[in-house]
């Protein structure tokens, strides 16, 4: 029972947030935070008589994603109608794509390579669909159960979505996370989706354990939650199998408050979407030249960037892979290096070990970090020039992340300049020696006591005393004490 075979497939819905307009009309696509039902027109409201007009930029973006995911791009792209009644639907059908009944989604049969610590893993992409996002149901109390009525906001209706479907090649929740992280980084490098926006990437995961029924978990909002939901499901299914229960195929919902999956109400009958061709949109022919043109314009993708980081900056594989796993982080790194060329590895260290740690600790995202690359570069320069100590640098960093002040401003305001003046340090040391007489005499024979004295000086100067100078001063004072030149 230990090693049960787990098969996971993902269905990722990606909003093409970088498009200026919706998929089938000219309403702007930056609907977030706008008053309800103000970003609408006859087309996305599905008013009688309105007709869809395909946003050709969406096709271009889809081809870019398809190329990045090594897919075969269909030359004749058709749209289909998928029927179901639901209040967030303006036409009670969704314009999407279909791979049967003569239909052809924009792309099929691709793959994405994941690098884990010990092996390279290939996840096959079954297909990529272009489709429209429905509107959004709004519960006035925030809960579906306690709300006496439901409101609908159609600002989101008609936003262009890509549905990226994998084969069930993923074997662990961690692999699912890696897949999604890499996909996200690719989408951001292609500049088609700002994946950090709320609801911009939504995932359905299906999982079967030891050949049991296929369980689908719907609409998981974040990458972390996908991993958690899958871990929960594996545990739940393993326990059921241990008890001798069989796992039936079903659809479950991820409750992101309680962090559990719960079964959705079971429908009496299988949903029949009655797919059929959308006659209002004639087939779109994608030519070889069009694909070639896009292929030529493709930006650098994470895999290439990783190799370049190793080559150009001499970074180890690990550092490079951490940096390119997030486009904004990689950009941040490169911009910092531009301003601090002398040691890219040092920049990587600060970003990966300190900067990232503080971001997580403060519960921030890269987007709302106030510190800019120039600030990190400045911090490193202050350190190099001996203006601040490494200890001070570590206290300055979290402050610039939160406040947006420059490092020198923080150093100035908090009087954090390093003390390297031997005379000043000597006076402070004398004071410490006198306050800790026993330690001072112990120090004549005990190394530990020396460190104690240095520690006290550092504490007194809040870490600003130059360690090298301090060490020297303490040594001199101890010699004087030994030779009787110093009276305490």
């Amino acid at each position: 029972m230990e090693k049960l075979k787990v098969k996971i497939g993902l269905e990722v819905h990606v909003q093409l947030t970088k498009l200026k307009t919706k998929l089938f009309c000219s309403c702007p696509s930056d609907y977030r935070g706008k008053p309800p039902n103000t970003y609408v027109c006859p087309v996305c409201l599905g008013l009688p008589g309105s007709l869809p007009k395909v946003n050709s930029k969406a096709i271009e973006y889809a081809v870019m994603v398809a190329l990045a995911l090594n897919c075969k791009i269909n030359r004749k792209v058709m749209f289909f109608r998928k029927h179901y009644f639901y209040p967030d639907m303006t036409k009670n059908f969704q314009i999407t794509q279909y791979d049967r009944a003569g239909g052809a989604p924009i792309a099929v049969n691709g793959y994405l390579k994941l690098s884990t610590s010990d092996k390279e893993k290939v996840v096959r992409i079954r297909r990529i669909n272009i489709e429209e996002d429905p509107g959004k149901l709004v519960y006035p109390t925030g809960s579906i159960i306690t709300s006496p009525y439901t409101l609908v906001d159609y600002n989101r209706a008609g936003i262009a979505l890509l549905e990226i479907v994998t084969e069930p090649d993923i074997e662990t929740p961690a692999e699912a996370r890696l897949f999604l992280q890499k996909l996200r980084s690719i989408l951001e490098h292609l500049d088609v989706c700002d994946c950090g926006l709320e609801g911009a990437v939504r995932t359905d995961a299906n999982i079967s354990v030891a050949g049991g029924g296929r369980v689908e978990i719907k609409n998981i909002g974040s990458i972390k939650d996908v991993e958690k939901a899958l871990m929960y499901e594996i545990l739940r299914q393993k326990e059921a199998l241990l008890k001798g229960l069989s796992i039936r195929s079903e659809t479950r919902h991820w409750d992101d408050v309680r962090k559990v999956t719960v079964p959705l109400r079971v429908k009496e009958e299988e949903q029949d979407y009655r797919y059929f061709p959308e006659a209002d949109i004639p087939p779109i022919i994608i030519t070889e030249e069009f694909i070639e043109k896009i292929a030529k314009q493709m930006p650098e993708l994470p895999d290439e960037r990783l190799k370049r980081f190793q080559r150009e900056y001499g970074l180890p594989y690990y550092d490079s892979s951490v940096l390119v796993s997030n486009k904004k982080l990689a950009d941040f790194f490169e911009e910092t290096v531009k301003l601090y060329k002398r040691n890219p590895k040092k920049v990587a260290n600060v970003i990966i070990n300190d900067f990232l740690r503080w971001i997580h600790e403060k519960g921030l995202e890269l987007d709302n970090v106030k510190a800019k690359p120039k600030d990190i570069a400045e911090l490193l320069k202050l350190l190099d020039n001996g203006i601040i100590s490494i200890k001070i640098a570590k206290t300055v960093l979290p402050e610039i992340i939160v406040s947006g002040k420059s490092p020198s401003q923080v150093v100035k305001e908090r009087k954090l300049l390093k003390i390297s003046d031997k005379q000043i340090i000597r006076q402070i040391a004398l004071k410490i020696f006198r306050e800790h007489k026993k330690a001072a005499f112990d120090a004549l024979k005990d190394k530990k006591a020396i460190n104690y004295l240095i520690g006290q000086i550092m504490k007194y100067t809040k870490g600003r005393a130059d360690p090298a100078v301090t060490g020297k001063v303490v040594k001199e004072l101890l010699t004087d004490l030994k030779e009787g030149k110093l009276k305490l």
Partner: protein
Amino acid sequence: MDVLSKPANELGELILSGAISIVDLIDKVYERIMKLESKVNAIITLRSRSDLLKEAENKEKEIKRGAAKGLLFGVPVAVKDNISTKGIRTTCGSKILENYVPPYDATVVKLLKKEGAIIICKTNMDEFAMGSSTETSYFGPTRNPWDLERVPGGSSGGSAAVLAAGIVPLALGSDTGGSVRCPAAFTATVGLKPTYGLVSRYGLIAYANSLEQIGPMARNVTDVALLLNVISKYDENDGTSIPGSRPDYMYSLSNPYHIKGSLKVGLVVEMMGEGVSDEVRKVILRALDKISGEGIEIEEVSLSSLKYALPAYYIIAMSEASSNLARYDGVRYGFRAKIDGDWNKVYMETRAQGFGLEVKRRIIMGTFALSAGYFDQYYLRALKVRTLILNDFRRAFKKFNVLVGPTMPILPFKIGEKIKDPLAMYMCDIETVSANLAGIPAISIPAGFIGNLPVGLQIMAPPLHEELLLKISKIFEDKIGLRNLIAPL
């Protein structure tokens, strides 16, 4: 009465020259509606008299200022009630849209306004254009001006009736399976279904979107050409709109006899066979007699796939209808049942109360045809028939310039006669649906009468051959000698 009987192509010039006052004209139109509408019931929404007169006055001022222009300046036009008109309610003949006022104009309506036309009213129709008699309208049946006991055909029955009643000289209809041609035939008017994609469908409330076109209707071929000139433009808002410019259809009529060589006309035998009444057959043959000779050869031709046209048409039309009509749920616009309950219950009740019987029948049958397990058997097979029909037409058009047959297999029937027998009603479309399946242009012109009941001659041409089709129609119209007919009321 005199101005009202004028063809639109003359009226426009008389208005611009100042010979006819637009205010007088609109006043007369309004008076005639007041006099006849209670008998005919051709109109769902009539614009208010004050609105119309104000528009007429403004247009007259433009004439005085010398700023008037447009192919239809001051010409009164009726628009079928499934074509969206900004600010004027557009019901589709259905309770479910009884109070729906579109916030936008259909492209054809924009084009009408651009050419100076005055939209008088929205005309009655079968609910969601589903019918061949205008009896399924929520607003009651329209009566045929030639015989008030009989139907005017459908679904654009209201548009045909306002023409035949001498109310307006021009009207827009829509034709999914014959809905322009059928009422034209039943009212001795002229109605054209253009090539699929010639006229923008943007703003036309869909019944079966892969089949339908908005079509011009008038009392003579020249006026149909004039109205086609106005409405046929490439429209980027309609993905199926054919790009490129359109010929001047009026110009091509100025010398209709200028057709190279002799004209080959194919009489489709399948269209004269079973189901066609003897009376209709007789009138058609008599009309063809008048036409033939002088460089016009008429020969029989068989298009064997046409026998499958009707079932294929109904499967496709109903399937598409079940999809197109899904949006009427009462949430965003239109009628909503006043009941409490979750959305599912409200949807069901809204649709149960909002749709009429024939619409429900087609939604249910279309839903069935698209269902898993039946899709291949019905929908995909119907698409194959569609291809066969298209190929048959292509073959026939290699030999013939145009194809002809009756528009309707029977004479206008009595109100109530077929409404309880859907299959008999569907059979009425047997002559017309194949042009929609093939996407080719087809026109109905008056062929003759049995007593006071009109019979229409249908003429079909290859795709985008409207110019040729109208030329030939004009020649036939001359030879048959029936034009500008107004029913004695």
